[in-house]
């Protein structure tokens, strides 16, 4: 079993177990990671599960899709490796992945 680490804006780290096939948003919710609001329940409708994937890991998660990009494009904290956590499906290859949380969600 691998793990993913979410790092809050002020530095608090949350290492959680990977559940293959679940979205990173759901995994964060399941483990009560603060800073992922997931208001819409994973429909890419709200943009409140914005994470910034640690540089080296973007190849494991892939880049944002078109609709996702449009949501992300307008967020103030946007970075080149920004993703919506609800659109990343966890795989075993993500063992060790680090995702940073922005100061504010949309």
């Amino acid at each position, binding site marked *: 079993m691998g793990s993913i680490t979410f790092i809050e804006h002020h530095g608090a780290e949350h290492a959680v177990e990977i559940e293959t096939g679940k979205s990173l948003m759901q995994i964060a919710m399941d*483990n009560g990671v603060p800073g992922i609001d997931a208001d819409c*329940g994973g429909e890419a409708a709200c943009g409140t599960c914005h994470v910034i994937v640690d540089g080296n890991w973007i190849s494991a998660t892939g880049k944002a899709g078109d609709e996702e990009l449009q949501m992300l494009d307008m967020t103030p904290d946007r970075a080149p490796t920004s993703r919506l956590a609800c659109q990343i499906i966890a795989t075993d290859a993500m063992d060790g992945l680090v995702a940073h949380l922005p100061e504010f969600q949309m």
Partner: protein
Amino acid sequence: MTRTCLIVGASHAAAQLTTSLRQEGWEGDILVIGDEPHMPYQRPPLSKAFLSGEKAAESLPIRPAAFYQKNDIQFRQGRVTAINRDQQTLTLVGGDGEKDGKSEQLSYDKLALCTGARVRKVELPGSDLDGIHYLRNMADAESIKASVVEGRHSVIVGGGYIGLEAAASLRELGMHVTLLERGPRLLGRVTAPEVSEFYHRVHTESGVRIHTNIAVSGFSGNGRVQKVICADGAEFPADLVVVGVGVLPNTELAEVAGLNVDNGIVVDEHCRTSDQNVVAAGDCANQFNRVYGCRVRLESVPNATEQARVAAASICGESRTSEFLPWFWSDQYDLKLQIAGLSRGYDQLVIRGDRLTGRSFAAFYFREGRLIAADCVNRPQEFVLSKRIIAQNLAVQPDRFADESVPVKELLLADSPALASAGG
């Protein structure tokens, strides 16, 4: 002594409240009382992906049971029939291990009312026939799903969001769908006529037969509904009826307990009711909204979770407030509608994109030159931008919003000199 927070209601607001309480450092007991045999689950998909079969029941829980166990959050099924605020107790009927009718008293230090809303029911001849459904909870959605038969007739009563989402899902499942709306247009209470026309068109194109200005006067059938009968004499064959004519806030408990109630349980900016030990959050709560400068009661998941966060802070003795901008969404067919803000009272509407023949556009609602709301159909960028403009009350030039040659981002940037004077 251990302190106890009781939460009445077990849906979106309650789920967030339990989580936020632990995050805020509440060390006492947390007990959630709900009247359904489920842990808190996602309600929006019930009329959408769950009804159409795209999402299974297993994917609906907001958080898994293990999360609540780990955080020592208890659940009980039952019905709260009274609150005694002087003694800080409530009366629970039909709780675990109790036979119907037996009641017990539970004590609280802090109480959260997350009682939500219930569907408005129609009382017409035949309205108790089998096959007539409402749509609010899992059991409702499951019984509708079980009644779906491809090629048979369904009738939707009510042309609001629930009605339209149900219509789209039932069409996708191969039923004939007739939709009856009492008013002159679909979504009449919530959108501009231009947006109503769009939804009228796309549903018609998908084979939904829409009738407006028509009043249902009753239902007929032998034990089970067969026809919907209208005041003008029209009749529609129906193997399945879904009634979606709005909801009523569950405020009776609060009212009987002497709390302030006025179209919802009246709460202050910290989600506190007129009793300092009682908070309320979600569809049942009526709160002053800073962005719009008036009291509103919102029927929306994002509002429920936001109020729950604020309420949790209040319970823990902090006084957080919220600059929450109301927003909503609705999925129908391939159309994702995202709504930012409240459009009531607009004096100018600007459309961006082709609403007459296309499937992607945004309708911007302005009042005195300020953006107050936007309905965005398959336009996530316009939605996010609108949220920002409205929340920060940024100055913009309404006419430019119609010009698609101006990129969305520049609707904001090109106006930035004005932003400074707007003061954010």
